């Protein structure tokens, strides 16, 4: 799980062009959206692409995944449960 979280952080940093941010700057339970990293709806769509591309998870409606997108912890749990690759 720890390894998955680290990998996920790096994937998010790369996909969202979060320059000047390192995986160590992202806390596992900090909110990803709004406060914290300050991600927005376009970032959410990019994270959906990460899920599809790297973990084989299809998210049709972004709204359905809202709870899972709260933090690195919830996102990693979601991936662990639903990944197909």
């Amino acid at each position, binding site marked *: 799980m720890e390894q998955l979280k680290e990998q996920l952080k790096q994937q998010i940093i790369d*996909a969202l062009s979060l320059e*000047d941010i390192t995986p160590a700057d992202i806390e596992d339970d900090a909110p990803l959206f709004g406060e914290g990293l*300050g991600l*927005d709806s376009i970032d959410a*769509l*990019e994270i959906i*692409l990460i899920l599809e*591309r790297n973990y084989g998870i299809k998210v049709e409606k972004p709204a359905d995944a809202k709870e899972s997108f709260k933090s690195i912890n919830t996102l990693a749990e979601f991936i662990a449960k639903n990944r197909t690759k």
Partner: protein
Amino acid sequence: MAQRVGYLGKSAVRTAMGSSVEDIFDRASSGENGFCATESSLKAEKIRRAPDFATYPMALINDSTVGVKASSDISRLEQLAEIVINEIVAGSNINKDACTLVFATTKGNVGVLGCDIPTPDSPTFLAETAERIAHRTGFSTTPIIISNACISGVSATIVAYRMIASGECENAIVVGIDELTNFIVSGFMAFKSVSDEVCRPYDAQRKGLSMGEAAAAILLTTDEKLSSGITIDGGCITNDANHISGPSRTGEPLANAINTAMREAGLDARDISFVNAHGTATAYNDDMESKAINIAGLGQTPINSLKPLFGHTLGASGVIEIAMAAEELLRGEILGTQRFETSGTAMPLNVAAENRTIDARHCVKCASGFGGCNAAVVLSAAAYHSVNNNYDNTNNINDIDEVASCQIANGKLVVDGEEILSGNTDFDTFIREIYHQKNEPNLKFFKMDRLSKLGYMGAQYLIGKSSAHAVCEPTDTAIILYNHASSLDTDVQHMRDLAKGEASPATFVYTLPNIVLGEIAISCGVRGETTFFVCANAREEAQVAAYAKYLLTSHRYRNVLFGKCELLGENYNLNIHLLTLKH
């Protein structure tokens, strides 16, 4: 000088469901829509143009019906534009030497763009596209090209109306044109905003938008003899200053646009017979509109959306929908919003599900789009047109001061004539040096495309929150920028993403040149007009400059951030000015 009356003359349209406003009205009244075409040629066309998404409803123009020739050397988009312009000319007998063509398009000939930066002779440059169309249809006047996302058509109509009202020109033909290509469809699919059934505006079960394509032209004229019986009486463009793709949470900026347009027309909400709204059927757009329309006092006024008829036709949507709204006013009957059943918006609206007869006096047409932009116009049955003098052009351009300027080019940053930074000429390195020099951390900067980074950094020195001219009254400032390459730099990036098999929403949103205006508006708190023009030469640039100055001399705004924001590959050139009206 008092404003002159802007009459709406003939319209010409080509859509998936008809080739005249009368035809579309009649077919829509009998329950037809442009998505029900079942001809195998159109299905094949859908598969060819957007192979991955061909199962989604799309409203495509039938080329053989409208006379587009595949064998021609002229692109399909340009042929469609010529068809609608020629139809207006033939039906109006206007003097072409006294008629300006005002184009509204988001993507022009983007269908032929590849994965490399286009060479200067590429058909993908919007201004040259417009010039070719103007030349072939026999116009020698300097065209105007507006690329303002999904409000392009309404924006272009407002710009044309102001040119007419202020005496800048006698006649203008507003041409809205966009075609569906894999470029556009893949982007909207990546945004997960496309419905798998024909769209259902304002309905509780709505699932997103349906895409369409259209070519539409309307004549605006000072000549009453050419009038169709409709006048354009007011218009306004605003920016949310909130987000580049998500609409405002409150609806206030769109409400401001509607209120200002009504005020310009000398009207208030009680005078409005109906609202033809944007109604894309995405969850967020329709909710935002429901709030805005209620704030503007139009919550009880009949409202409809025409998107279920011919889809969301992007840059053309404003033009075709204004032409349809005029037809509805003339008939005293509004079209029902097909597929609307159960209200499902944040605030209640009086959505017309079926056709309704109305006391046809005035109509509000509104639209909203990426970049946080909103636009509204007021149309009137000519008998109810009231003379207004809200925007007397009492000042002249000598009353305009340039209070600040910023240039970024050739590895130099110059502010108010003083060189602030000289560095690496490589754009990506240099813009980063400027960012660090300004030293105002903003994580969003790194997510912007290169065009937006350029405009954003320059604007920080002129009207940014820490600058000498920071915006104090958000609605008092407008941003008018232009360039030659539109968003082609990022368009190429989107093509590269597609070649790798995956559209990126974060790239796609920047394939509209007006997003840079949204980024500036957000960072500097600008809620006035934001309009992006595309120019190929000094004559076209001079016309845009005249428009920017008119916004000041007509007292619409106190400040206008105006200038060039050019970026394509390693060619970058920002030259912007803050203009204000002398006290």
